Structures are given as structure tokens and as C-alpha cells.
């Protein structure tokens, strides 16, 4: 990460951290409530959707960060996403195929898509490596 990226990260880093903490709290809190409390059907829907707010905040922050990157960094980000997104889709296909074959039954698409964030990291460094 270079100087310009660092300045953008410093500007929004606190907000991203706060958003991530909020999201994790909402995820664990919602899951805990849904697993342990006897809630009405309407309240269960509301509780289940609470983490969406955290995701929305993080998406908004991500957009702000990308908008403040320079044109070259935006290209690197685009290439990283262009690798990570189809890779996550491929992983989803692999999991579905394995399930048809009778294995990996415990995996769901909901567990595969978050891996896109993990796939993004090597994809980002690969994209940067191309322009070294």
C-alpha cells in the first residue's frame, strides 16, 4: 500500500473499522437473538435483516474510498474485483457440484460468497504485481 492509498485509508480507516465492528455485532447479535429468543415471525424477519444496515454502511464507505483513489489505483481495484468476483462464483459452482456428488453438504452459498473478500486480497496483490 503506497502513500496515496495510506492517506485515503487514514481518512476512512476509522469509519471502516467502526462499520466492521457494527456489522459483526449486528451479525452475532441477530444470530444470538434468532437462536435463543422466542420472537414473533415479524420480529424475526426484522432482526434477521438488521445486519443489512452494517453491510450498507460498509458498501458506502468502500465506494467513498474507491472514489478517492487515483485512476491507476482504481484500475488495480477493478482488476482485483474482476478476478475475485468470478472466482467466488466458480467456488460456488464447485461447492454445488460437490454437493450433487454427495460431499460438502454443510457448505451453503451463503458461506461461499463471503469468501470473495478473502479472494480479493490475493487478487489485489496479483493485480498490483502486474504493474510492478
Amino acid at each position: 500500500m503506497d502513500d496515496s492509498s495510506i492517506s485515503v485509508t487514514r481518512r476512512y480507516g476509522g469509519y471502516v473499522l467502526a462499520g466492521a465492528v457494527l456489522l459483526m455485532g449486528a451479525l452475532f447479535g441477530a444470530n444470538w437473538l434468532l437462536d435463543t429468543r422466542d420472537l414473533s415471525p415479524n420480529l424475526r424477519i426484522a432482526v434477521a435483516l438488521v445486519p443489512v444496515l452494517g453491510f450498507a454502511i460498509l458498501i458506502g464507505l468502500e465506494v467513498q474510498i474507491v472514489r478517492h483513489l487515483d485512476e491507476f489505483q482504481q484500475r488495480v481495484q477493478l482488476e482485483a474485483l474482476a478476478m475475485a468476483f468470478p472466482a467466488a462464483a466458480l467456488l460456488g459452482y464447485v461447492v454445488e457440484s460437490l454437493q450433487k456428488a454427495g460431499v460438502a453438504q454443510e457448505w451453503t452459498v451463503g458461506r461461499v460468497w463471503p469468501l470473495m473478500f478473502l479472494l480479493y486480497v490475493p487478487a489485489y496483490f496479483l493485480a498490483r504485481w502486474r504493474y510492478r
Partner: protein
Amino acid sequence: MKSRLRVLRAEREWSQAELAERLGVSRQSVNAIETGRYDPSLPLAFRLARLFDLPIEAIFDPGESG
């Protein structure tokens, strides 16, 4: 696309970080332009031209493709 950016920068004894700061871009961007792995947008090319007080074609050589 080839560029004379590294030479022009060296003539002014600027580091990549210093040039990046003057342009308002990242050092990584300057490096990618200097190595010819990234072609800057027209607005950025104009900013470079103004900074070095040269026409764009004195900094960049599009080669055969131009």
C-alpha cells in the same frame, strides 16, 4: 506506451514520491507510468505536460500504435 518521464524527473532531481505529490497521484502510479505498464488518462497526461512545461508528445511516445 513509452515515456520520458523517468528522465524528466531525474533532470529535476525529483523522487517518484515527490512527483506523485506534485501530480496528486500515488507513487505507485508514477512508477507504473514510468515503466510503461500503465498509460495515463488524457487529463493526467495534460497535468504532466503542464508540470514539466512540455507538450504531451515530448513526454510520451505512442510508437507504432499511435
